[in-house]
C-alpha cells in the first residue's frame, strides 16, 4: 500500500522560477488525485445499490407483512416472528439439514478427490494434459446441463442400475446370495444414520423434533453430480499449488529417509494447506448457495429429501408469492455464506 501511494507534489515551491505555475499545477494535481475516485464512482455506486441497499431492502421485506401478491410493507409484529415461524417449519429444518449434509459430503469428495487427482497427475508418466482436460471440462458446463444429464443417469429404471446389470455386478451379488443392487437414487426417501434416538437420550424433548436428522439418501446422487462438476476445480487449484513447491523440498525429505507416501503425508500436503483453505471456502460457499443443480436434477425430492434454502426461496417468492418468507430464507442463506466468506475476505485483506 505504501509503495503505490499517489505521488506527492514535493518539488513544488522549491524553485522560485516555477512559482507562477504552482497554482495551476496544484489544481491539476488535485484533479488528478480525485480522478481515480471519480472514475470508480459509478461502479461503486452501482454495487452499493445492487448489493448493499438491495440486501437491506430484502431484510426489510423479510420483517414485513408482504405475504401475498398485494404489497404490504407494514412491519410484522412481533418483530422477527416470521423467522421464528420459518425455523419451526419442518420443510425449512429439512433444508438446513440437507445443506449441511450436502456441504460436508461434497467438500469431502470434491476437495479430497481433487487433491488425489492432482497428486496422481503429478506422478503420471504421460498423458497429463489429456487427463487434466478430462477432469476439468465439466467445470465449463452449466449446472443445468449437469443436472439434466445426471437425472437421466440416476433414473432407477435405467442409467446406473442398468449398468450394474450389464457389468455383471448383480450376477456376482446373486452368487453370494445378496439381493441385486437397485437403489432408488433420487426417489429414495430414506434418512440414513438418523441421530434422533441419540439426541433424545442426550437432550430431553428432542423426540418432538419434526424431522429426522441424518443423511437423506436422495442427496447422495446430487453430491456425486456436484463432485463430478467441481472436483476438477479443486484439482486445478492443487496442481497450481504443487507447481510452486520447489523440488529441493522433496529431495530434502527423501534424503531424510522419507518414503514417497511420507513425503506427501508430512511435507507436501501440509505445505498445500493455504490452497486447501481457499478451495474449501470457494466450494463451500458454492454449496451453501446451491440451487440450479438441484432444481434441474431432483427439485425438492421425496419428503423434501433434496430441498435446500435456494429452492425454498425460489418457490416461496415466485410460486407461492409469500415474499416475506422467501426474503427471510434468503437472509438466512446470506448469513450462512457470510459466515464463511467474511473472515476469509478480512484475512486476505490483512495479509496484503
Amino acid at each position, binding site marked *: 500500500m505504501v509503495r*503505490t*501511494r*499517489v*505521488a506527492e507534489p514535493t518539488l513544488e515551491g522549491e524553485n522560485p522560477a516555477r512559482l507562477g505555475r504552482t497554482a495551476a499545477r496544484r489544481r491539476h494535481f488535485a484533479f*488528478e*488525485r480525485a*480522478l*481515480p*475516485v471519480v*472514475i470508480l464512482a459509478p*461502479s461503486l455506486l*452501482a*454495487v452499493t445499490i*445492487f*448489493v448493499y441497499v*438491495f440486501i437491506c431492502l*430484502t431484510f426489510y*421485506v423479510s420483517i414485513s407483512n408482504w405475504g401475498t401478491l398485494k404489497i404490504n410493507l407494514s412491519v410484522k409484529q412481533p418483530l422477527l416472528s416470521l423467522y421464528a415461524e420459518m425455523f419451526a417449519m419442518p420443510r425449512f429444518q429439512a433444508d438446513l439439514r440437507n445443506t449441511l449434509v450436502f456441504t460436508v459430503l461434497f467438500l469431502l469428495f470434491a476437495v479430497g478427490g481433487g487433491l488425489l487427482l492432482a497428486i*496422481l497427475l503429478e*506422478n503420471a*508418466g504421460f498423458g497429463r494434459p489429456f487427463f487434466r482436460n478430462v*477432469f*476439468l471440462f*465439466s*467445470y*465449463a*458446463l*452449466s*449446472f*443445468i*446441463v*449437469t443436472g*439434466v*444429464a445426471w437425472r437421466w443417469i440416476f433414473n432407477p429404471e*435405467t*442409467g446406473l442400475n442398468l449398468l450394474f446389470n450389464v457389468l455383471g455386478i448383480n450376477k456376482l451379488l446373486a452368487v453370494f446370495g445378496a439381493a441385486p443392487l437397485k437403489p432408488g437414487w433420487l426417489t429414495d426417501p430414506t434418512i440414513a444414520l438418523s441421530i434422533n434416538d441419540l439426541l433424545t437420550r442426550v437432550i430431553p424433548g428432542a423426540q418432538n423434533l419434526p424431522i429426522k436428522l441424518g443423511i437423506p439418501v436422495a442427496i447422495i446422487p446430487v453430491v456425486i453430480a456436484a463432485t*463430478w462438476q467441481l472436483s*476438477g476445480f479443486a484439482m*486445478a*487449484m492443487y496442481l497450481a499449488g504443487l507447481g510452486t513447491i520447489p*523440488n529441493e523440498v522433496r*529431495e530434502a525429505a527423501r534424503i531424510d529417509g522419507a518414503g*514417497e507416501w511420507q513425503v506427501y503425508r508430512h511435507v507436501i500436503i501440509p505445505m498445500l494447506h493455504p490452497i486447501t483453505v*481457499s*478451495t474449501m471456502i*470457494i466450494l463451500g*460457499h458454492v454449496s451453501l448457495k446451491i*440451487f*440450479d443443480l438441484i432444481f*434441474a436434477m431432483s427439485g425438492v425430492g421425496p419428503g423434501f429429501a433434496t430441498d435446500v434454502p*435456494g429452492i425454498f426461496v*425460489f418457490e416461496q*417468492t415466485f410460486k407461492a408469492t409469500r415474499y416475506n418468507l422467501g426474503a427471510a*430464507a*434468503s437472509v438466512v*442463506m*446470506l448469513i450462512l455464506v457470510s459466515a464463511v*466468506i467474511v473472515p476469509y475476505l478480512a484475512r486476505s*485483506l490483512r495479509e*496484503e
Partner: protein
Amino acid sequence: MRAEAALNARKRIRPRRLGAWTILLVLFVTSLFFLMPAYVMVVTGLKEARNVSLSTMWNLPTTLTGGGFVEAWQRLRPNMGNSLSMVIPATIISAFLGSINGYLFSKWKFRGSDVIFALLLFGFFIPYQSVLIPLIRVLQALGLYGKIWGLVLVHVIYGLPVVTLIFRNYFANIPTEIIEAARVDGAGVLQTFRRIILPLSPPAFVVVCIFQFTNIWNDFLFGVTIVPNPKAQPVTVALNNLSGSFSVDWNVVMAGAVVAALPTILIYLLLGRYFIRGLLAGSIKG
C-alpha cells in the same frame, strides 16, 4: 553439476516407476467416470426417439441421422440467440469496466481503497436470492424487466467484483516503477492507462472474457426470475423447461444439453490454458 543433476533425476524417477502403471490405471478408470455423462448425453442425443428405450441406454446409436439433435436445435435456437445477445455485450462491458477499476485499485490506491475493494468483492459471493425482490422491482421501474438488456445490466453489475479482482491481480504483477516513471514524465491517470497498462493487458482481457462468458452463459437464477417469457429466456432456462416437459423425449433433452453446453465447451477446448488461469484468478489469490 551435471552428474549430480542426473543422480537427482534418477532418484526422482525410480520410486515413480514402481507405481507408474497403477497410477495410469487409476487415472484411466477415473476418466471413464468423468467421461460417462458426456458419453450418455451424446449417445442418447444421437438416437431416434423410437430407439431410446430404457434397456439400451448404454448402447451406441444404430442410426446416424442426427437423432434428437434436429428437434433440440429447432427448439433451442431462439434461446441460443438470446443467450448470445446477452453474453456478448455483457462480457465486453464487464471487461472494459473491470480493466479500469482493477488498474485504479492496484496502482492508484487512495485512503481506504483496500477496504472498499473488499466490500466490492463481497458482492461476488452473496447468494443472489438475497437481492432478487428489490432487483426485480427496480428493473420493472426501469422498463428492463423481461428484456435481454435487463439481464445484460444485471450481469455487468454483479460481475463487477470478480472482473475487477482478476484485473487487479494481473496488474499487481506490473512493476509500480513503470507507472511512477510515467508519472514523473507527466502522464496522468488515464494517459498511463491508455499508453502503458492497456498494451500490457491482452492476456488479462482473454482471461476475463472467458470467465465472464462462461459464467453468464451458465447462469440460471437471473434468467429464470428476470425473464418470464419463454421465447425471450436464455438457453439454460429453455433447457430446463425442455427437460421438465413430459411431451419431450429423452433423446431431445440430451441433445439439447449438448447444444446448450457447446459454446462454453468450445471455448474450453480452444482456450483451455486461459480458462484454467481464469478460474484460478477468480479464486481471490490466483
